[in-house]
């Protein structure tokens, strides 16, 4: 992208007026998250108060509902957002307009630093006596508001002040739930999914994270760090998460009881708030829950490894789908199911749904192998994520996974996501998992309306549209807006005006991101987007629709003047006006356009110079003029030749006049006879 296509940063964008001043020379890495970088901030009104500013990453969607709940009604022992707004921030890449959220800054320091350094005031007694209870209070407060934290990490818990009495839990609004949380800190039921694909989770997921975090704080280590994903996952399945994460080290005493309760791998067996309070009061009755059996009756050897656990086998299949397809095609699948999974009733319906057929794959569809593996994975691990090609996600994490794929410009992942949005495929997965995971059905229903639009190549549709439909808080991801934050159609139109002023923006409306963003965030703009899509091959018509589009937007948003965009639009209309065949009409329109151009009012331009209607009239009148011209040419040809006495017309007319004379003579003769 050439630099002239980059929207310049606006001059006046500072939502906090002069109150907050961000000092980007003082980064605060302990408060940074995947959703943004934290910096020191000075409050001009209350210089004694400690704040930090989180400069958001435009590729990651924030949790708007969490902001609303927490800014209106803050939760104790949790870092809650105070204010947010757009601001020009001097970042390493230059001045950029970014969404900035101001948080109150705990000054006591992180319990476990970003590099794993343990806070000197952290000890087992404090962990057991106050920290666990304060974290529990923070979680209870969040859950009461219907919000799950899902980002609890030992590095994101801080002493509120230098005294080190109170602690606060890090914020949970700057990233989607569970986004890029280390796998060891995610409960086992969600840990099989990719980093962005773990979904909203539940209260139980928060309590697991609390337990794992306390365990890390107890040992003073980032227990997940340096651990291989597959071996840690296998250890968690085989030994339980508590033992796997601690590396076989026990936590003695009552704290160990608490951690084992919180880190139970079965969500039903996991401790929740009431159990933790009971633990504080000395009532530690263990939860008795029926244990699910994930073990197979006999191990299956795949890629040199013998698997006994269904979830691990599904994970191995999902991570190597082509080898899995080959493996499955070689099996007598119904026999394998009967021998390996004796508790499964392998019905004909299930056999048809799984459709694993032995033999080669000649004639099968392009993705048939991947789809077959995805079906088998869902059969083996019905409560687990959907595993398709490189993806491994829960369907409620679809928004975050799409945003992540766009942020990484991962075309393979986007293509796989598009293929996943197939009604028949999803319905089969739901059928296979239905008896054990009803939530898959609910999430697939929510995605139903995107099934048709995802694969469309039309402007304003495709995966870009799915991205903005699912992530309403995400700013426009167009490469033109790298330096600015476009969170609304108003901001977009103002940015395009600046871009036009800088000499760019000629092809802005051909940008798939801009079109999709407008279709989602604009009011009744989809009609124009569809018309633009239909007119892509006709620049004159396309520019006419673009003018109408901007005119409607300017009127809707009551923006008084868009001088640069008006000039650009009129320039675009030039082609359509030049196509007007009537010279007088063309000259009149050009004169009018020049007059309106100075006002910067596209709405007026469209109102007074309706090029669509004029083109329509012009075409109709031109057709009439052509007919008239054809008639004139025909008459001219006829009249141009020399008239002779032999000409039929001369003959006819001459003889008729002669007959008139002869008749007069005959009448005269008759009169003589009578007289």
């Amino acid at each position: 992208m050439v630099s002239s296509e980059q929207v310049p940063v606006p001059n006046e964008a500072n939502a906090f007026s002069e109150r907050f001043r961000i000092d980007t020379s003082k980064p605060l890495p302990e408060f940074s998250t995947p959703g943004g970088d934290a910096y020191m901030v000075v409050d001009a009104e209350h210089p004694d108060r400690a704040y930090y500013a989180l400069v958001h990453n435009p590729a990651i969607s924030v949790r708007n509902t969490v902001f609303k709940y927490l800014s209106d009604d803050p939760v104790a022992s949790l870092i809650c957002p105070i204010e947010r707004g757009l601001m020009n921030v001097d970042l390493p890449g230059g001045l950029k307009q970014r969404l900035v959220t101001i948080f109150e800054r705990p000054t006591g320091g992180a319990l476990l630093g970003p590099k794993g350094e343990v806070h000197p005031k952290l000890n087992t007694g404090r962990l057991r006596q106050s920290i666990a209870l304060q974290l529990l209070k923070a979680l209870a407060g969040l859950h009461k508001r219907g919000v799950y934290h899902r980002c609890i990490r030992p590095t994101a818990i801080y002493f509120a002040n230098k005294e080190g009495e109170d602690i606060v839990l890090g914020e949970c609004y700057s990233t989607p739930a569970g986004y890029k949380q280390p796998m060891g800190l995610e409960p086992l039921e969600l840990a099989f999914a990719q980093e962005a694909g773990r979904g909203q989770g539940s209260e139980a997921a928060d309590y697991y994270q609390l337990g794992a975090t306390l365990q890390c704080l107890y040992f003073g280590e980032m227990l997940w760090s340096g651990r291989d994903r597959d071996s840690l996952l296998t250890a968690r399945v085989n030994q339980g998460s508590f033992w796997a994460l601690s590396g076989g080290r026990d936590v003695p005493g009552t704290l160990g009881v608490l951690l084992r309760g919180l880190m139970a791998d079965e969500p039903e067996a996991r401790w929740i708030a009431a159990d933790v309070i009971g633990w504080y009061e000395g009532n530690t009755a263990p939860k008795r829950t029926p244990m699910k059996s994930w073990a197979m009756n006999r191990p299956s050897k795949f890629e040199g490894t013998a698997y006994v656990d269904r979830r691990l086998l599904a994970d191995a299949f999902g991570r190597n789908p082509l080898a899995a397809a080959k493996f499955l095609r070689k099996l007598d699948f119904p026999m394998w199911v009967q021998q390996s999974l004796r508790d499964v009733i392998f019905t004909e319906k299930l056999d048809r749904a799984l459709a694993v057929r032995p033999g080669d794959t000649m004639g099968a569809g392009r993705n048939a192998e991947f789809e077959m593996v995805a079906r088998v994975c869902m059969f083996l691990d019905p409560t687990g994520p959907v595993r398709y090609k490189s993806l491994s996600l829960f369907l409620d994490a679809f928004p975050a996974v799409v945003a992540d794929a766009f942020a990484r410009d991962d075309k393979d992942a986007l293509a796989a996501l598009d293929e996943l949005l197939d009604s028949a495929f999803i319905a089969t997965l739901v059928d296979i998992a239905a008896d054990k995971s009803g939530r898959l059905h609910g999430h697939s229903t929510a995605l139903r309306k995107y099934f048709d639009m995802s694969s469309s190549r039309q402007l304003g549709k495709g995966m870009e549209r799915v991205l903005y439909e699912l992530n309403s808080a995400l700013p426009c991801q167009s490469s033109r807006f790298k330096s600015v934050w476009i969170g609304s159609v108003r901001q977009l139109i103002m940015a395009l005006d600046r871009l036009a002023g800088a000499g760019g923006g000629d092809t802005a409306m051909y940008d798939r991101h801009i079109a999709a963003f407008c279709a989602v965030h604009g009011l009744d703009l989809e009609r124009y987007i569809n018309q633009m899509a239909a007119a892509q091959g006709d620049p004159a018509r396309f520019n006419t629709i673009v003018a109408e589009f901007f005119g409607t937007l300017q009127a809707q948003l009551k923006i008084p003047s868009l001088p640069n965009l008006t000039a650009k639009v009129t320039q675009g209309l030039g082609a359509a006006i030049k196509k007007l065949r009537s010279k007088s009409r063309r000259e009149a329109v050009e004169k009018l356009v020049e007059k309106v151009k100075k006002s910067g009012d596209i709405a007026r331009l469209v109102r007074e110079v309706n090029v669509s209607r004029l083109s329509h009239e012009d075409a109709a009148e031109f057709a009439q003029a052509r007919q008239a011209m054809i008639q004139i040419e025909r008459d001219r040809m006829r009249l141009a030749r020399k008239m002779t006495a032999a000409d039929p017309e001369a003959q006819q007319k001459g003889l008729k006049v002669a007959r008139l004379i002869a008749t007069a003579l005959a009448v005269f003769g008759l009169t003589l006879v009578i007289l």
Partner: protein
Amino acid sequence: MARRGGNKQIRMRRVPSVGARLMPLFLLLVAGLAIFSMPAATLLCLGMIPTIVIVYTATGIYAGLKAQVVGLSNLAGVLAAISGPSQQVMNPPVFDTYGLALAFAGAALGYILVFMGPVVAAIVLQSFSQERLRQLTKQRQTLIEQWGGEILAGPAETKPDHEGSGS
């Protein structure tokens, strides 16, 4: 086969010629006149010979019109002869050279009219065409100025834009 027969019948129907249509009328007129004046009827018979000739010999799409012109002129000459002094003395018409000359002069005038009518008409029409041509050239120029040279080229692009105008 029935259709062929039908077509044949249609082909065999002939439009009666001008002579065939007028001859019974002419004979009726001669017979009627003979009751009152035999010489006048004789003069009519002999004097109208040029007309009878053209009725049966004229060809082309304007044959009827030519026959009418000659016939009416011829009739004017015969009527002038009938109204002349020779009728009053009841001379045998075969010797009435004055009457016959008058009748044939009428026919000759008719032939002149047949020949000269189209010539004069061509001259008059030619002058009218020049004026009309000037008007058309002016209209053509106006259209070219308004719509450009495109109006002269190729087939007319009459497809109007049917997409909604938007506002």
